[in-house]
């Protein structure tokens, strides 16, 4: 279980003044749950994701994983304690192969057959990808799926996906939804947090939290929250013509 207590985060703006992005935020993610955090652009969603992964350090407040305080832990320590993070824009590497990323993620001597398993879970034919470099020769959609495969290989207690739909085409997005649906069915003794304002992702959530100006303004079950969001910036549909 992830617990966030009184978390605040601020940065200095151009004038050198403190600008608060997250205000004394409280949030709980129970085990075996999929929580989608939505909200308008600039509401602090991605910052919150980075604070959970340790990429940003909070100005005050606490983050607990299974009751242990992880607030002061580095990115590495958090990762080793079971936090997974999928980047909004997957990082490209010259020379590092898809297999290498999966090997590093698994934290052990990975068999090729195991690596292939992770790739097929995200709908990629392993034979075509496993020895390819994770560089600019891959499309946004391909990189996104590889990013998700690396997170799967980690088998985390809690995985945070930062806007998984960003930067990919509609075709890939539809496949991505299927991947998340499959993941949703498999979570046991772990939990997932997805940052997204796409209707279709909100639709597979157990719970939805709405973030606005760095505060949680609503949180509840999907059935409770989802209807209130339709037609707002917090629940965007794909272009009507493409339906």
């Amino acid at each position, binding site marked *: 279980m992830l617990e966030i207590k009184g978390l605040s985060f601020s940065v200095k703006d151009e004038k050198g003044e403190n600008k608060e992005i997250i205000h004394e935020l409280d949030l709980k993610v129970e085990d075996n749950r999929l929580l989608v955090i939505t909200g308008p652009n600039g509401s602090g969603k991605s910052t919150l994701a980075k604070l959970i992964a340790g990429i940003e350090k909070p100005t005050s407040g606490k983050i607990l994983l299974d009751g242990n305080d992880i607030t002061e832990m580095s990115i590495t320590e958090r990762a080793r304690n079971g936090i997974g993070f999928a980047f909004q824009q*997957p990082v490209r590497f010259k020379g*590092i192969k898809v297999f290498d990323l999966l090997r*590093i993620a698994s934290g052990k001597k990975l068999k090729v057959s195991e690596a292939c398993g992770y790739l097929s879970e995200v709908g990629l034919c392993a034979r075509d990808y496993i020895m390819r470099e994770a560089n600019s020769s891959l499309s946004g959609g391909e990189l996104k799926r590889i990013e998700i495969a690396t997170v799967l290989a980690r088998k985390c207690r809690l995985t945070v996906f930062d806007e998984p739909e960003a930067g990919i085409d509609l075709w890939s997005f539809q496949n991505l939804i299927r991947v998340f649906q499959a993941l949703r069915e498999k979570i046991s003794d772990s939990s997932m947090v997805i940052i997204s304002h796409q209707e279709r992702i909100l639709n597979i959530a157990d719970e939805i939290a709405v973030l606005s100006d760095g505060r949680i303004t609503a949180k509840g079950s999907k059935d409770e929250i989802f209807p209130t969001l339709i037609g707002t910036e917090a629940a965007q549909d794909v272009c009507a013509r493409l339906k």
Partner: protein
Amino acid sequence: MVELTEIQKRLIAEVADLHQVPLGAYNFRANGGLAGRNTTANIDIQSKPDGSGIDIRIKPGTKNESVHIPVVLSETGLKETVYNDFFIGADSDVTIVAGCGIDNCGSQDSEHDGIHRFFVEKGAKVKYVEKHYGSGDGLGKRILNPVTEVYMDEDSSMEMEMVQIKGVDSTERTTLAELKKGASLVVRERLMTHGEQKALSVYKVTLYGDGSSADVVSRSVARDDSYQKFDACIIGAASCKGHTECDSIIMDRGTILAVPSLEARSVDAALVHEAAIGKIAGEQITKLMTLGLDEHEAEEEIINGFLA
């Protein structure tokens, strides 16, 4: 075959991936003398009459054979210059593995300067691998100054893999190539320097024949206080294609000078050069840290991948 010492065996394993005597033709040179040689029906190796090096002759049509010519130096203060000539017969397809390992535990400099000339006949295909490696903690420097000359006849092709990852204090590598009609040359250089090492790498490739092509790509990492210079010039004197690229990671207080250049002597020469130098991207380290590596491990993975 002369019995090799453990240090010599280790050096050979580093530069030629050899853990035992290889199949096929080979010539081992250790501390300035011949340590072993084998020839085959198609590949002959002879010492030059003046003792300055060896001639390697590969018969036309030889397929899927290999030649290993590793050199090891494990005595301090040894300085040698060796001239090796390769005559590669028409339509053959061979792999040549050269490499030099120096272990210098003493206080005097050790130096090996190998001058390799390749005469690649019509339609022949060559894969050439050259690795450099240095070890030993003496004050004496480990110096390697290889010169490679490649003369490529019509429709021949050559792929050169040049690797220097560790332990060589000073190196000045010069590679000259001339290509006739339809010939193609691919060079992949991988270099890492550390400490106060200095590495200069000069390429001059002239495309004389129509349909010839050259692709010279270097990937390098400069750590600590080391210095690297990559100077590659492709000259297009016909309807040809040339590409040169230098991609480097700079770390610590390293210095990298990249000077890719092109000279077109024909309106039909299509020539391109690229160079990029930068530090390891912070987001790459962050990503690997989210996978459980610490900062140092992440850096090593990035460098190993980049130079793989």
